[in-house]
């Protein structure tokens, strides 16, 4: 991983006695503790996180403001605050808000999911996209969209597809995890990150071919509808679909924050983690589970939005200059990326491209940069 800037090192045994060293550390890094949750307060990091949150809110308002008819930002803020006329409230609350809210929630879920997965697997390129989890979710949704025989509305399309996506994502994760289970390099039974990533890529290839096959079985209309879903589109976002995503995102956030300390320990490598007394396998499984749920819920809501889960944690890490992928900042960055991509697409692009395509187009070059950087580092060390 990176140089350990900003991480609190274990108190060194000094001649003056350990107590004083600990007090010294406390003075430098005041910590906030609530039960098992412990956050070290770092003013710069805190400042950047607040700035990110402000940026997300700004993009959220902008996403409401742009569209077929642009609404002045002032009025958006006014309506969100409870003011505005009845018709203004209708347009903003009923038609624009769900879309913007979906963008933010989906982005946050993807960012968080990516941050968890990348921390656990010690690889900046590991993410639900690369591991095939979003593809598994896509198989579920496409199967429903193709199998329902052209139901564009109704229960099948609005409820069936998201549930199938969620099931598909979770099933894929379980399969990958079970397949990766085995004897590791040290003879210890368990899951190693390296094997998990490779098996994920293999499973992803199979799932892609299943999607291709499903698309040939469908009528052209159904195939087109499935294809649109596959690009990750915010069109048709509604409150009914955001609510489950919000609930899931909250649960996952709480779980992952409570495990933040474990995550920091896992980052030190599996042997050190074991020495520190963390039960690796169960913690790993829990956190991978949280990551998968977040990614699947996001995919279920709008379709696969590529590269956000991959890029958001890395951008957050670079901004905060932390050793590992920061959870809250990654979620905020993800939200900003998706909302920003939606604003970009609707306000500036000649065609209203699905948000997944915009994020992929921006994410591709970033990914290549990451790859090159990773290879350089591997060669130097």
């Amino acid at each position, binding site marked *: 991983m990176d140089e350990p800037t900003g991480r609190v090192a274990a108190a060194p045994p000094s001649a003056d006695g350990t107590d004083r060293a600990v007090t010294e550390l406390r003075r430098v890094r005041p910590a906030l503790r609530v039960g098992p949750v412990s956050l070290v307060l770092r003013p710069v990091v805190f400042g950047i996180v607040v700035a990110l949150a402000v940026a997300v809110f700004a993009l959220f308002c902008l996403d409401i403001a742009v569209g077929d008819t642009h609404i002045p930002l002032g009025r958006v803020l006014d309506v969100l605050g409870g003011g505005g006329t009845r018709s203004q409230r209708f347009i903003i609350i009923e038609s624009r808000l769900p879309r913007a809210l979906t963008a933010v929630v989906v982005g946050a879920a993807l960012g968080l999911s990516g941050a968890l997965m990348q921390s656990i697997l010690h690889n900046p390129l590991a993410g639900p996209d690369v591991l095939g989890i979003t593809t598994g979710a896509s198989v579920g949704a496409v199967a429903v969209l193709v199998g329902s025989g052209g139901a564009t509305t109704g229960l099948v399309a609005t409820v069936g597809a998201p549930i199938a996506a969620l099931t598909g994502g979770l099933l894929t994760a379980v399969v990958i995890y079970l397949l990766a289970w085995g*004897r590791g390099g040290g003879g210890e039974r368990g899951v190693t990150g390296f094997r998990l990533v490779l098996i994920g890529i293999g499973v992803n290839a*199979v799932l892609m*071919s299943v999607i291709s096959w499903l698309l040939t079985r469908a009528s052209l209309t159904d195939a087109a509808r499935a294809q649109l879903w596959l690009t990750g589109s915010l069109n048709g976002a509604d409150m009914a679909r955001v609510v489950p995503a919000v609930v899931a995102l909250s649960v996952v956030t709480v779980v992952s924050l409570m495990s933040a300390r474990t995550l920091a320990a896992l980052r030190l490598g599996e042997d050190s983690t074991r020495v520190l007394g963390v039960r690796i396998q169960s913690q790993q499984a829990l956190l991978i589970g949280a990551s998968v749920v977040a990614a699947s819920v996001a995919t279920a809501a709008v379709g696969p939005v590529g590269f956000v889960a991959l890029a958001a944690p890395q951008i957050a890490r670079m901004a905060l200059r932390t050793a590992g992928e920061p959870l809250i900042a990654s979620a905020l960055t993800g939200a900003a990326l998706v909302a920003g991509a939606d604003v970009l697409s609707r306000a500036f692009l000649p065609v209203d491209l*699905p948000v997944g395509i915009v994020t992929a*187009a921006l994410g591709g070059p970033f990914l290549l940069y990451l790859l090159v950087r990773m290879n350089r580092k*591997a060669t130097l060390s």
Partner: protein
Amino acid sequence: MIHPGTVRRRRLTGLLLLVVLLTVAVVASIAIGTRSLAPTTVFDAVTHAFGCDGGPFRCPARSTAEEIVRELRLPRTALALFAGVALGVAGALIQGYTRNPLADAGLLGLNAGAGFLAALSIFLFGFTAPAQYIWFAFAGSAIAGVIVFGVSSIGGGKASPLSLILAGAAVTAFLQAMTNAIIVLDNAALDTYRFWVVGNVAGREAEVFWEVLPFLVVGVGMAMAAAPSLNLLSLGDDVARGLGVDVTRARAFGLIAVVLLSGGATAAIGPIAFLGLVVPHMARTITGPDNKWLIPYSGLFGGLLLLVADVAGRVIARPGELQVGVMLAAIGAPFFIALVRRKRLVAL
């Protein structure tokens, strides 16, 4: 230590067996289908076809059975056989040059590159026939190949199995998204593309076969020519250099051969994953690491596997059929997973 004579005998026996199996697979591929034909009818139709003036694909048919054989089954079988050979040889080359037991044209993004440019050309020029867009698919896999190998070799280090595969997965994901962007804008492009991308040897015209054939032949020739230097490269770059191999030039030569083979095959029948991964491992159990044997063996195994998968796809899903790309994913994935699960991934 196995006696050299034993290895030699095993290689020759294996070769004989492979040729016999291939013949059986070819006959089965011509005979089995929605309408199954008796072997005698097949034999008769084929001999008559090859005795014709206009060549086997342009001969006037004397009966419906003959028409099926000529128009549908022969081109299909020839395409499957040659594409399989090409993909098998390409797989052996990729694994040899990258010294990576997990390398495969599909996993390394070459297929996605072909898919992207194919979709782009279908969208821009309204192509509907494979013969029109194969050139773009070709160029696409070449570009993707250069990007993946380039990115994973920046930094001058040996690309580890993980980093090369990740580079492939990354490029694939990006190109796939771009492809989606194109076909979501245009239903006609989607309609053509979705039948190409699944990986299919049915319904391709004989014209496609003749167009890609020269590339496949040149590619196989180059692969055979590269075998001795590839053997030296497998000793490590420094040793190879010491023995007088121009390492960079040898690598470039190899990459060109891979693109000709897998690009040509992908252009003709669509992206096929896992074949190039599985086949060299099968071949290696018989031939050992010597590329002079491994490469031709991989070719024959590739042709055999693609034919068998195609025939099996027709039998399993009767009266419809399961495309060969799907069949190979189903066969190849368990193999890939078993390979990954092996205790240590030994570099080749």
